[in-house]
């Protein structure tokens, strides 16, 4: 193993130059990374590899001696994932190290075939291990990105609207799963605090099915709101859902429900001590067209 380390040390500049050259324009992505930066990255990696090999075989890439290389590769892989490099480009960054390495090994060990074969084996094991590590880090970063986008989408798709002073409405469209319900719940409660709203109407007209889990989540939201000093009203309970709820034995005794949003709004107004009043006949708007003189528009 130290053979390989020495060979790399001796030929570092040449290996690096050939490596970058062989990487090909697609891997280099001049639009995303400058030549100097790329050169620096390759230098750091090769240096770290030499250090690592001095401590142990590359099959032990998880040991302490390889920490620098590991963290470095995880770092550049993650940043490339974010920058928009493709998986192949990221893998080829590491894999294109093979040809220059093999050439250097063959050149330095051409006098002894057995040694050359063993060292070539080491070289290929090394690069493969590094490539796999790089890919794992790349995938982890992409998954994190996707997860974050999903969160944002969930928040965007369930806006909380203010119906009146102190009365909020949360129209939910689509299926409610565990993750989405949690996001929705947190969003609602935060808006309750921010707008000082004592009433929150959760409208589930757009929710096709309600199972036990969803019902539990809704109940938790209602309980949490109550703990904070606000009240929830569930509206838009369709007949099928009402049947499901009863069949599942879900206890909604403590929960205020209404068939539609407007009824729920009426209830919230009433509970907050307000009434909607029709203006008397004395006002202009309610006189009727035939009662008074024609307005400018009608002339």
């Amino acid at each position, binding site marked *: 193993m130290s053979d390989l380390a020495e060979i790399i040390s001796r030929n570092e500049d040449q290996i690096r130059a050939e490596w970058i050259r062989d990487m090909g324009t697609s891997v280099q992505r001049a639009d995303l990374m400058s030549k100097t930066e790329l050169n620096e990255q390759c230098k750091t990696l090769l240096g770290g590899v030499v250090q690592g090999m001095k401590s142990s075989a590359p099959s032990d890439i998880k040991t302490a001696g390889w920490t620098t290389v*590991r963290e470095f590769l995880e770092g550049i892989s993650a940043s490339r994932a974010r920058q928009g490099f493709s998986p192949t480009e990221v893998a080829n960054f590491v894999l294109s190290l093979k040809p220059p390495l093999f050439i250097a090994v063959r050149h330095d060990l051409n006098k002894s075939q057995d040694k050359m074969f063993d060292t070539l084996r080491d070289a290929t094991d090394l690069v493969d291990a590094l490539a796999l590590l790089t890919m794992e880090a790349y*995938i982890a970063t992409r998954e994190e990105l996707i997860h974050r986008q999903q969160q944002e989408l969930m928040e965007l798709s369930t806006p909380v609207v203010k119906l009146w002073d102190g009365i909020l409405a949360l129209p939910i469209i689509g299926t409610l799963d565990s993750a989405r319900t949690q996001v929705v719940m947190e969003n609602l409660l935060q808006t309750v605090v921010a707008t000082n709203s004592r009433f929150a109407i959760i409208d589930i007209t757009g929710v096709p099915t309600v199972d036990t889990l969803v019902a539990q989540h809704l109940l938790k939201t209602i309980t949490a709101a109550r703990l904070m000093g606000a009240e929830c009203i569930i509206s838009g309970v369709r007949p099928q859902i009402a049947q499901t709820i009863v069949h599942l034995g879900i206890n909604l005794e403590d929960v205020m429900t209404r068939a539609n949003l407007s009824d729920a709004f009426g209830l919230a107004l009433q509970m907050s001590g307000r009434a909607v009043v029709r203006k008397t006949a004395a006002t202009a708007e309610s006189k009727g067209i035939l009662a008074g003189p024609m307005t400018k528009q009608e002339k």
Partner: protein
Amino acid sequence: MSETRRETLPLKNSNDVVLARQKVRQWATELRFTLVDQTKLVTAASELARNTLDHGKGGAMAIEQVGVGGRVGLKLIFEDQGPGIPDIEIALKDGFTTGNGMGLGLGGSKRLVNEFSIDSTPGKGTRVTVVRWK
């Protein structure tokens, strides 16, 4: 994987419980857990730390970052050499709403974390290990 950081705090008096809470909060903030996840974990830590103190007659809490692949989590280990818990099943049932129950807060804490395990030998001590993933 990179080396894991671990910190241990004593739980000898009620002020230690506060320090333990703050330490867990600090770690969770550094690892950028969401606010709700942080609150759940710190609350669970508070429950378990208090148990260790009150029921276990004092002990310690260890806190450690864990991770597999791209996942990041926080592990808390509460250990004491107290009387132990004779019946774990009963202990995990919610007792504190009655006010006079064992009040161990174990059942509730279990719901606040992703992984929960408890090891207890009557007369020897108790170890509770919990993990919350980001």
